[in-house]
């Protein structure tokens, strides 16, 4: 079964890029949001929950760190992977509970490997 990924990113081209990469590497994109507020609402209604959430930082309405906090309040086991060009968001992101941080522009192999690693880590041990 393919890993489910939810995308929070305000740049349409970057979303397109994520979708294409994720499809090629066998992930399933279960949805995306252009801003933090909408992301929280969509995430709350997602069933089943995504295995990994890709999170930008500089977003309209709510930034990535605030959005991550809210998402983790809804589901503390959510795996949020920060992917941002704003390197100053790394420490705040990790300290509110993001599971990983990648700097933009990311290396394709590292991006794919990190999502896989986080997604599989979220699975029950029995399925490994």
């Amino acid at each position, binding site marked *: 079964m393919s890993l489910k990924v939810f995308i929070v990113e305000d740049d349409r081209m*970057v979303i397109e890029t994520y979708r294409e990469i994720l499809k090629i590497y066998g992930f399933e994109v279960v949805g995306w949001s252009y801003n933090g507020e909408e992301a929280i609402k969509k995430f709350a209604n997602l069933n089943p929950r995504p295995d990994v959430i890709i999170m930008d930082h*500089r977003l309209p309405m709510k930034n990535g760190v605030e959005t991550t906090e809210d998402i983790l309040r809804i589901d503390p086991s959510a795996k949020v992977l920060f992917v941002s*060009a*704003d390197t100053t968001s790394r420490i705040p992101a990790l300290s509110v509970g993001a599971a990983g941080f990648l700097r933009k*522009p*990311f*290396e394709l192999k590292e991006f794919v490997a990190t999502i896989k690693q986080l997604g599989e880590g979220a699975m029950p041990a029995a399925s490994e």
Partner: protein
Amino acid sequence: MSTASTAMTNSMAVRSRVAVLRILLVEDNPGDVRLVKEMLAEGSKQLVFKIEQVDTLAVGIEKIKREKFDAVLLDLGLPDSKGIETFHSLHAISLDVPIIVLTVLHDEEVAIEAVRGGAQDYLIKGKLEGELLTRGILYSIERKRSEGVLRNRTVQAESAQVRSETYFDYLAHDIANLLSPIMAYAELICDDSAAPSNTRVRAARIVEQARRASSFILSLRTLQDVEETPLDKFDIVDLADLFPLVERRVREDHPEKQISVSYELPADVALRVIGGVHVHSMFEGILENAANYADNEKLAVSIRVVPAEEAGDKSFWQIEITDDGPGMPDELKAFFMPSGASSERLKKGISRGVASSLLIYSALVGHFGGSGWVEDRVPGDYTKGVKVVVKLPRSV
């Protein structure tokens, strides 16, 4: 009136020929009030003083809140307030109006305290005379005006700095964002086994350029961070541990080249310097540059570290990285110099197309209290390779 005060009066009267200065006199002693009024009544052809007098601090404060004055003459001993507090109370609500303190001889120390706290001047009652008082008022107004101009300039400079930092931040952030799809799609083409091989080679070049752009943005950001960080916040690194890592990285990045690296390091002593990851990246950058610019397949690099004593109380490690690549013309060498990257040098560097990495290293080394320069490997012949010398303070 003295020449100096006439000149100042003239400057004030440019527009209206006659300058009218509104003075608030906060003084309860009728004798002193009369004296001051008489002295200022003399005025001159170009200058008229219009005096408002009040007896108490409370009324003075009310006046200054509601009306505009050019200067305040303030007696420190009033019925409702005595001493330095009188000044502080009035000053707190009228920061833009020059205050001249009037004091009696035995209270001169308090008057000096008032000047330290922001009063423009103080005058001693009993020693007052017309010209002294007029000049005191005019100088105070002029000084206050200059202070205001200076303050505005400082505020403008600060806001210009904030703006330029913000623009840089947007630029760095958005370009990194824009590079993401470029790099990702080019990498997808590289990995696509169905794509023709020359297409994949071209895509690899796009990836390489995007990576360079990305690492350049990161270097500039790093430099900005470094310059804002106090020295005690940086990690200390041992050069003997660092160089093998740097060497490995450069070999990995340039599998097409045969790179030989020889070392000459002092034995039995820790080669510790301040700078952590930044010093690491700098040496990586210096070696990367050597590998990037080497035209031949073979590149020989030697790394030598020697103690370099300074005249002051600091001692340094001198690190010399020599390569047999294509060398560097003198004009470019000059940009990596002991004095670091001054603003002028940075600007000149832009117009001369100097590799920004050299300027960044200069600024880094300078920030850590060190220095650096570039020499010819073979003195007098710049085409035979370069020797990059970096002096960094030794850490214990």
